[in-house]
């Protein structure tokens, strides 16, 4: 069985999710080739355990992101029975595009991968779980934080292939820079606010707690729809981001069904809400019936005391 893994880059380095892609696929047996678009993180990829070889795919087209150009450049190298990428926005597009070029199907956002290609993925944003059996060749993307990362200690050979493709999407202007704020889809800890925060200015209180925890700040759809100041990129839920952090803290969020769909698979959920009947308490591991005005200052003080030690 031959597997091709398309590595994920972030700000010129290898994204840690790449080690998870290898952790998930190394147990399948067979050789694993890692393709590094634009050569990003090739040396780091070679040191991940289980990697057979690394191909640094270089070319003009990797200067900025163009799905068609990248997939045309990568597809001839994405061989084998299984093409694997991260279920990030770029990973999904590349996997879908490369699969279409190869004439094979793609299965996105996989959270379980067993021998015999029995695959698990959430559908309806986690309101149901789907079990699918694949007959390779196929392309799949894996959800971040769903698989254990492979360790280091690998020493794979790195080769370079120069293979560009025509760029048809011209980047004219950068409007905001990624990474200025930690994204909810990336974070191990998320603290989210809902309309119960009363005013978008009060989200600054969430950022104060988030800074102590190294957490990302999220929001419910109600908050995003009500307040212009809260961008859609912060929205957790069925029409926002589906997240699986280790800890999700919901403040002033009642827990509409579409919000629960986006965060219910978090490992631990803390809910703070003044309404004891709020549906969010139905999924919370630790529920606190209190106003955020009362609870947040205590939370901030306790966490600061705990984490400064």
């Amino acid at each position, binding site marked *: 069985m031959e597997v091709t893994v398309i590595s994920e880059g972030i700000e010129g380095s290898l994204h840690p999710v790449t080690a998870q892609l290898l952790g998930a696929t190394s147990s399948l047996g067979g050789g694993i080739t890692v393709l590094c678009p634009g050569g990003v993180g090739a040396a780091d990829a070679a040191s991940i355990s289980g990697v057979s070889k690394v191909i640094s795919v270089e070319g003009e087209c990797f200067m900025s992101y163009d799905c068609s150009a990248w997939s045309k450049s990568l597809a001839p190298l994405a061989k084998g029975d299984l093409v694997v990428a991260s279920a990030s926005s770029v990973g999904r597009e590349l996997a879908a595009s490369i699969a*279409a070029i190869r004439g094979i199907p793609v299965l996105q956002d996989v959270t379980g991968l067993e021998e015999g290609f029995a695959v698990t993925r959430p559908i309806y944003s986690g309101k149901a779980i789907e079990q*699918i059996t694949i007959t390779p060749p196929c392309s799949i993307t894996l959800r971040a934080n769903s698989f254990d990362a492979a360790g280091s200690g690998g020493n794979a050979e790195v080769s370079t292939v120069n293979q560009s493709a025509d760029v*048809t999407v*011209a*980047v004219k202007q950068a409007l905001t820079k990624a990474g200025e704020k930690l994204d909810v889809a990336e974070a191990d800890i998320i603290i989210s606010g809902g309309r119960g925060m009363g005013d978008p200015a009060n989200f600054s209180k969430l950022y104060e707690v988030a800074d102590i925890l190294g957490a990302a700040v999220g929001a419910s759809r109600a908050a995003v729809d009500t307040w212009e100041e809260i961008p859609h990129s912060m929205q957790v839920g069925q029409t926002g981001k589906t997240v699986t952090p280790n800890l999700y803290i919901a403040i002033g969020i009642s827990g509409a069904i579409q919000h629960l769909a986006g965060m219910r698979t978090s490992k631990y959920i803390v809910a703070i809400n003044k309404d004891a009947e709020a549906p969010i308490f139905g999924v919370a591991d630790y529920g606190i019936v209190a106003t955020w005005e009362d609870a947040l200052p205590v939370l901030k003080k306790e966490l600061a005391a705990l984490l400064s030690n």
Partner: protein
Amino acid sequence: MGIAVLLKQVPDTTAKISVSDGRVDESAVSKWSISPYDEYALECAIQLKEAGYGDVVAITCGPQRSSKALTEAAAVGADSLVHVLVDGFLDSLQVQSLLSAAITKFESEVVLCGKQAADTNSGSTGAGVASLLGFSCVGVVSDISIEGGVFSATRLGPSGLEKIEASAPCVFTFDKGETELRRPNVRGIMMAKKKPIETVSSADLGVDLADSPLIVDSHSSPPQKPPGQKFEGAESVPLVVEKLRDEANVI
């Protein structure tokens, strides 16, 4: 030269999903809607039409019930409606092959769709269709305009929010942005009910739906969490923080 907008009918995001006999019970879905991101694609397609780019053809691929999505699209301004009538499970390549064939048949060089559908949450269609047709692909777009034959769009790329330019033939996949969705008026709804829907089969499109290498074994409900612990008042916060450290080991 027209604009194709790809619409998928999905259970409304407020609908409960129930599973019976190992399959999601579609008959128990209380409300079906156009997938939310597709609504932004539709709105932007109509804006391009108003800017003089061309007529809007709305295309859906799905069972009989999906035709309602097309009528809803007509009510806000879609000019022609195409229903690729299929039943049962199709894999990504089958869906993309059908949609690509329909786009070619109706001679569209600009294709708009949602970045992902609210049922599978996959996000394969736009990029896959672009590859099959040999079109460019711009993903996660929040607004679009046209000037002198060049499309200008805001997209969320890996480096952040960017202003990009691209030319036809191109597929754009849409995110929720600042764009306000228009609501149909009474006249629009009445006119839409009379608008003909062109129904085509896979055979009409020359697409062979051979067996898929993907087999859906079962659906199940997500595992229920055991009931959590509930506390009263802000004075319980220190106890919860302690539990997060000692019980849950997450901080």
